[in-house]
């Protein structure tokens, strides 16, 4: 195991530290190897009820009739919940940071917008009864035209599936988040080469081994204690409180030991309805996703499309980068509008490019609502940008690392989002990677540093 930290670069002042910088044994390792770490589902309650959902079988349809009588006849079924049981049925999780409108129902009222959308919650003594009950709910649909791709969603005559009248999120009157820096068209005209390529990425499931879930336990003092594997305790508590109504301090959320999150456990999707079920029955209620639900119902990383157009000089300097990107929100906004803005903020990648234009769309379709995943808004962007750099290097017959070093951003550079860069180190990680892999760099590139612009033919 090679020594991890190379202290030759940026020799810091870390010598007088005692604990920071040392490989302290994981505080949770002992519990993990003895099987005694407490995950939310390891709370064993004798009289716990189980909640299962009856889910939509259609991509996009009106709900003509929802008949729960069959479910109520199943032995062990205690309660059934529909939208009528949800005090504040319409929400969007980022309303906590000012995003609107509240475009998502906890349980739908007149239509479903994606296959798998929860319609009726069935609460029963055992999982088997809840599953049976959920299967006995009868729903009569009237299909509506479904929009299943982003391209389709943005065409002129596409059916509009969102109440605000567009199949994309509106950013302060614009259909997309925008970056306008310099003049890309002018720069394209001056460039020796112009390359435009397209990249696509399909949805990815977080697939934590522990599925999303919670147990809500009514407390003697009338409050509700939510045992949850959420990644964000108060974010979940506040959103849940807004949905179920009543005083915020009625809720307590405990957890913090999560069997893998990767961004998939911050959707506040199981806690609200489980709280309502606990209030309705005055008994503990567990609502945990099956593996099938985690795979096809829980949020995924969004499908994304990038079109990257670069103006490049013969010597490899990139003078213009125009990026059009489409991130699929699926049926509801969720976190995607934030992810799109984060994607735009990331552009044009770790390079100083004087002219940058970005149009980043948050697109709605009749598909499983997407959510944040590790590298939210950036992972698929980096796939596009770093494949683009490889293609430029090939086209110019330039060394791929030297092309990146030539364009790498440095301290003091103005980024496209107008922030002055500081603490840059792209040059150094590339140089160190070249050293690690025996990759020869020309002398001028060896000497480059993030601290100065020496050696860059600006």
């Amino acid at each position, binding site marked *: 195991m090679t020594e991890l930290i190379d202290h030759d670069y940026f020799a810091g002042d870390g010598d007088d530290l005692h604990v920071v910088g040392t490989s302290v044994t994981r505080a949770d390792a002992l519990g993990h190897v003895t099987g005694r770490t407490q995950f939310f589902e390891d709370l064993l309650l004798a009289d716990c009820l189980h909640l299962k959902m009856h889910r939509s079988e259609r991509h996009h349809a009106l709900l003509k009739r929802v008949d729960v009588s069959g479910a109520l006849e199943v032995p062990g079924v205690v309660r059934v919940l529909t939208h009528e049981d949800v005090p504040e049925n319409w929400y969007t999780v980022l309303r906590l940071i000012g995003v609107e409108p509240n475009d998502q129902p906890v349980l739908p009222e007149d239509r479903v917008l994606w296959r798998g959308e929860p319609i009726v919650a069935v609460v029963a003594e055992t999982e088997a009864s809840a599953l049976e009950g959920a299967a006995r709910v009868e729903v009569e649909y009237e299909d509506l035209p479904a929009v299943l791709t982003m391209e389709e969603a943005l065409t002129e005559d596409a059916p509009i599936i969102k109440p605000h009248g567009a199949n994309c999120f509106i950013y302060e009157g614009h259909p997309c988040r925008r970056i306008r*820096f310099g003049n890309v068209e002018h720069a394209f005209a001056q460039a020796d080469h112009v390359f435009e390529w397209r990249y696509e990425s399909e949805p990815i499931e977080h697939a934590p081994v522990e599925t999303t879930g919670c147990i809500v336990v009514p407390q003697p003092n009338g409050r509700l204690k939510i045992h949850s594997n959420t990644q964000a305790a108060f974010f979940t508590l506040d959103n849940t409180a807004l949905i179920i109504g009543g005083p915020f301090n009625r809720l307590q959320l405990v957890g913090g030991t999560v069997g893998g*999150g990767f961004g998939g456990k911050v959707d506040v999707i199981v806690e609200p309805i489980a709280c309502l079920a606990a209030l309705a029955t005055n008994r503990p209620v567990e609502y945990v996703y099956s593996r099938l639900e985690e795979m096809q119902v829980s949020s995924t990383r969004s499908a994304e499309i990038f079109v990257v157009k670069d103006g490049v000089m013969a010597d490899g300097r990139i003078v213009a980068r125009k990026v059009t990107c489409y991130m699929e929100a699926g049926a509801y906004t969720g976190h995607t509008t934030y992810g799109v803005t984060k994607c735009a903020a990331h552009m044009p990648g770790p390079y100083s490019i004087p002219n940058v234009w970005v149009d980043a769309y948050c697109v709605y379709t009749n598909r499983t609502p997407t959510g944040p995943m590790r590298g939210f808004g950036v992972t698929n962007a980096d796939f596009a940008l770093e494949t683009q750099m490889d293609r430029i290097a090939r086209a110019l017959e330039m060394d791929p690392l030297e092309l990146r070093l030539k364009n790498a951003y440095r301290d003091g550079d103005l980024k496209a989002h107008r922030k002055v860069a500081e603490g840059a180190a792209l040059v150094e990680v590339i140089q160190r990677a070249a050293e690690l892999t025996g990759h020869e760099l020309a002398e001028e590139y060896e000497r480059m540093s993030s601290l100065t612009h020496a050696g860059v033919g600006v």
Partner: protein
Amino acid sequence: MSVLHGRGYAAVNYPTGMNLGGDPSQALIHATTTGTFVIALSSTDLGQGLKTVIPQIAAETLGLPVEYILLDTADTDTGPHCMGTFASRATHRVGNAVIMAAREARQAMLEVAALELGAEPEELATDGSGFVFVEDDPERRIFIVDLALAAHFKHGRTLSGRGIFLKEHHDPVPETGEMDPDSCQAHACTVADVEVDDETGEVTVLKLFNVYELGRVINPALVRQQIEGGAYMGMAHALYETTEPYYPKRDHLPSNFGEYVLPGPAEAPEMESVVIERPSSTGPYGAKGIGEMTANSPIAAIGNAIYDACGVRLTTRPFTPERVLRGLDALKS
């Protein structure tokens, strides 16, 4: 049949903290009669290591061994607010909040020690051993347990502190996209060596070289876990993962870990990882966030390595054997 070898590169940066800020975290800390400082949070550990890293930061600030720090987290009745664990923010935000709280607690600790040792707080020092001592006369010292008992029962002093870290939120300018998205940027360069079976399109990742710059490393072993665990996830993203194998058609959707094709233990590539430190101006002891970026650069590095090996340029992820083989067939025709 031949196996083609290729190498690919990718270099990336990644922001620390929720985009555009507005994501505070708070920490409370107090000593008990056991001489141990308890940190109260509502932050979560998804396996990224918060429960280990945060006590290290508190121990460093207090000047105590980490064994004298306890972390009590994720109870919204007892732990102060935290925005949540995502956006590579926890070490940075919670770390800064804990430093602020620990500094206040340390000051109270030094003041009580000064009373016990008959000296001025400014004359006192710690060396991580658990003792507070007069810098010029180290024999005049008191151990943290005795100090805590004196504080509780003799001097009536609470050894506690409060901390919060907030990067103010600013909305982007709609017309230009001007915004202040991050507290600092981490960096990485990944080099991937792959093998392509030109008869089946199967790609094997032989080795991943992971070079990172993460500001100050708080715990090297945990940093390696995130770098190499993330690089593996990047390989999984690159070559295997899709919830819709026939996207955009919604057919044959995987329902479990059998059908959702993921690489297994046999697919773990050899890895060599190196970290360089350029301490950040905003992070706790210069730390930057790492959790979210480590799956990113491997994807393009692997895609570029496939091109280097067999000339097939893959622009749709995942790079399945079918896509590689269709590319090879197209090159041949």
